[in-house]
């Protein structure tokens, strides 16, 4: 139980590595940097293996089969004293609280294993890939910080801590996309990824608030238990709103329509970053979150439908763009978006295990594809345009072989990993619901065909055909060092073997993967039963009747893979300089639309960012800015100026009143009156004393005469 009880150490190890890099990295030698950063991840991987095996042992002895292991270190947010409460929807108080707690159950075990495992391989690969780059310690510091955030996200036992990891991986994604920050395109792409992710995060936050308000808790275990308790009816509007908002968050993080636009641009980052963050781990966080909230989603059929439809459309949409892209990493980026669409399609039809299985296999083969692409780019002295490649299969054989395996896996060729996961998804889509849901199967099937085509196109253009690079570049082509090829080989083995874990019943296997995940998703069965949709229930007896159909579908999708290969083979086998694109030959306008990614970025520029004007109108954020500026100058400032003008007017009037009425009549008036009075008074005052004496005498004489002759 040592590893299990110290599970919190797993995320802390990379955090330690990141801290060392940030404080001392500048002064450390490259070898020390590699030792510290790769060492922490290797340790984390070993601990993860130990923890998962101990968890299996612990949970199998438990009577409550596969119950989640939870350890709470302390109350991280809010208070556990019961004094800090908020009011839930039914008026009862609930504690405002989030733990620094860790949860290990089959779902997080799977993520834990492949994140640390693939992360470890990519760290090793990076020591070779980044060997000649500046900012070596910075790169590894960010990578370790990313691993910390991702592991926090996976192991969190509540939505709030998950959100911390969620934001952490977003930050690291931003930092690593903008790793070559001196390139404008890279910093723009980083900002784009960050901003688009914020839109999703807003949805996630709101969804979280809804859950807290409705369930009174944010712990996964408590929310799941409440959701499965039967108190809530299926189609509950609040749960529907909450899950839809959570799905908005998932759309941002996992690059679904309409928020997928950041992921192709994220290819500006170093290739190992694309492999780790933008293919294998971070972008599957949305899938993880939805799978983690499966108990809620099951209660909201509308949300499930939305998830399925958005997933299917994204899969088709991105795959079609991938058909014609020329940048090797961009093809893989659109492929990633498309595969993520598959995963959401699976979640949306209720086949959570199949979706998670596809995440698992996809992590290996897509990481392998990206690392292989990195190896190709390394060999090609930084060239990423497939039009300037060709005929590399003899010169970099290990890269070629391993990428070939990954291509078979993603194209869904038996018995490579992708075959099992993709077919599980397609089969579930076909069989779970029926009716209009079958249409989603057609979309998925078309996507499978496109996937096979663009992947084999990539392979043929890169490794076969005629060499189309310049002589300088051709001269420098070399196989990558062992630190890069060994991870490729290991991943190739995984890409081949990972699917065997989910060998379906119909082919005589026992689908251990689904079985392993059952405790996480089993609770949904009761809910579905209640609703009377027993057809959605996990296989069981019914399945045997449909084995024939399942075989047929498998054969069909194998056929699609073969068809994709054949079309690519026909068109690109002999690709020489100025080779023809079949789609461009077929229909130039469609080709142009695809090459320009359906002009979605331009559309967003018109509608949302406002970098482009629609006629004279500027819409979107900048338009909002322009409108606000207009409002400010004309309305707000107008009000201010108007107030000023009125003040001046009244002050003029007031001053006139003061000057002429108050001063004139009130103050000067009496003075003038007094002065007028003074003129007659003055006339008595000659200033000659003797005149006064004379007057006095005259008066005296007057008095005497008056008294004497009265």
């Amino acid at each position, binding site marked *: 139980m040592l590893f299990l009880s110290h599970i919190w150490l797993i995320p802390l190890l990379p955090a330690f590595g990141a801290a060392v890099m940030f404080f001392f990295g500048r002064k450390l030698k490259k070898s020390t940097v590699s030792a510290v950063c790769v060492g922490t991840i290797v340790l984390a991987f070993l601990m993860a293996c130990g923890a998962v095996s101990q968890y299996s042992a612990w949970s199998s002895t438990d009577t409550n089969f596969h119950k989640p292991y939870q350890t709470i270190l302390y109350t991280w947010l809010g208070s556990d004293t019961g004094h800090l409460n908020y009011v839930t929807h039914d008026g009862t108080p609930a504690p405002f609280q989030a733990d620094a707690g860790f949860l290990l159950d089959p779902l997080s075990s799977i993520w834990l294993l492949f994140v640390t495992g693939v992360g470890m391989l990519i760290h090793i690969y990076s020591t070779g890939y980044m060997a000649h780059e500046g900012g070596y310690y910075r790169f590894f510091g960010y990578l370790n910080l990313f691993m910390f955030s991702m592991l926090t996200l996976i192991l969190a036992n509540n939505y709030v801590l998950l959100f911390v990891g969620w934001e952490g991986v977003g930050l690291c994604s931003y930092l690593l996309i903008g790793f070559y920050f001196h390139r404008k395109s890279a910093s723009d792409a980083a900002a784009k990824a960050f901003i688009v992710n914020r839109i999703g995060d807003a949805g996630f936050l709101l969804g979280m608030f809804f859950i807290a308000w409705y369930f009174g808790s944010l712990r996964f275990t408590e929310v799941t238990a409440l959701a499965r308790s039967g108190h809530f009816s299926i189609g509950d509007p609040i749960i529907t709103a909450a899950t839809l908002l959570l799905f908005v968050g998932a759309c941002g993080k996992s690059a679904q329509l309409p928020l997928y636009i950041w992921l192709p641009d994220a290819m500006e980052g170093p290739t190992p970053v694309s492999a780790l963050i933008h293919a294998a781990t971070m972008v599957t966080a949305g899938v993880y979150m939805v799978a983690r909230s499966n108990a809620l989603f099951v209660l909201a059929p509308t949300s499930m439908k939305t998830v399925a439809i958005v997933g299917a459309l994204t899969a088709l949409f991105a795959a079609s763009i991938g058909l014609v892209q020329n940048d090797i990493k961009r093809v893989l980026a659109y492929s990633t978006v498309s595969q993520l669409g598959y995963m959401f399609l699976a979640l949306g039809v209720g086949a959570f295990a199949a979706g998670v299985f596809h995440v698992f296999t996809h992590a290996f083969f897509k990481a392998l594809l990206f690392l292989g692409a990195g190896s190709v780019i390394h060999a090609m002295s930084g060239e990423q345009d497939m039009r300037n490649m060709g005929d590399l299969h003899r010169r970099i054989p290990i890269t070629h072989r391993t990428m070939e395996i990954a291509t078979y896996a993603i194209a869904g060729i038996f018995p490579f990993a992708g075959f099992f996961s993709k077919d599980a998804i397609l089969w579930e889509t076909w069989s779970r619901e029926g009716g209009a849901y079958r249409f989603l199967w057609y979309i998925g099937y078309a996507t499978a065909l496109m996937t096979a085509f663009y992947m084999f196109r990539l392979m043929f253009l890169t490794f076969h055909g005629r060499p189309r690079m310049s002589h300088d570049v051709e001269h420098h082509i070399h196989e990558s060092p062992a630190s890069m090829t060994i991870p490729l080989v290991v991943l190739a083995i995984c890409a081949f073997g990972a699917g065997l874990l989910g060998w379906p019943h119909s082919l005589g296997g026992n689908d251990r993967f689904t079985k392993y995940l059952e405790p996480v998703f089993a609770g949904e069965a009761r809910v579905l039963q209640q609703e009377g949709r027993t057809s959605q229930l996990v296989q069981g007896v019914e399945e045997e009747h449909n084995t024939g159909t399942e075989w047929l579908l498998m054969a069909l999708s194998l056929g699609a893979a073969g068809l994709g290969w054949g079309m690519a083979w026909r068109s690109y086998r002999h690709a020489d300089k100025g080779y023809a694109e079949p789609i461009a030959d077929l229909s130039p306008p469609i080709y142009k639309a695809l090459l320009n990614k359906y002009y979605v970025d331009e559309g967003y520029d018109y509608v949302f960012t406002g970098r482009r004007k629609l006629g004279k109108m500027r819409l979107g954020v900048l338009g909002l800015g322009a409108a606000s500026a207009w409002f400010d100058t004309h309305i707000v400032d107008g009000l201010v100026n108007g107030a000023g003008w009125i003040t001046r007017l009244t002050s003029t009037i007031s001053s006139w009143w003061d000057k002429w009425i108050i001063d004139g009549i009130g103050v000067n008036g009496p003075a003038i009156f007094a002065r007028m009075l*003074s003129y007659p008074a*003055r006339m008595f*005052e*000659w*200033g*000659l004393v*003797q005149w006064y*004496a*004379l007057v006095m*005498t005259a008066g005296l004489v007057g008095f005497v005469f008056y008294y004497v002759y009265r």
Partner: protein
Amino acid sequence: MDTLLHISTLHYLVLGAALFLLGVIGVLTRRNVVIVLMSIELILNAVNLNLVAFSRHLGGLHGQVFAIFVITDAAAEAAVGLGILIAFFRNKETVNMDEVNLLKW
């Protein structure tokens, strides 16, 4: 003849009135402040004469006492008046009454 030989109260009163008249005319007509002051003395002494004459006529001493008070008063008045006059002269270098008009508006 008797009237001429025997000096009665009437004589005093006539003399007093004459002196008073002279004083008043002096005060009203002379421009020199010193002369005006001297004329005031004349008026005061005319009053003294009246007081003493009535005292003798009535046979009491009140009039005499009053006369002595008036003499004292006249001395004080002359002192103050001459003092003002000297201060005035220092400022205006004149003793002309017409030019004593500083307080005129």
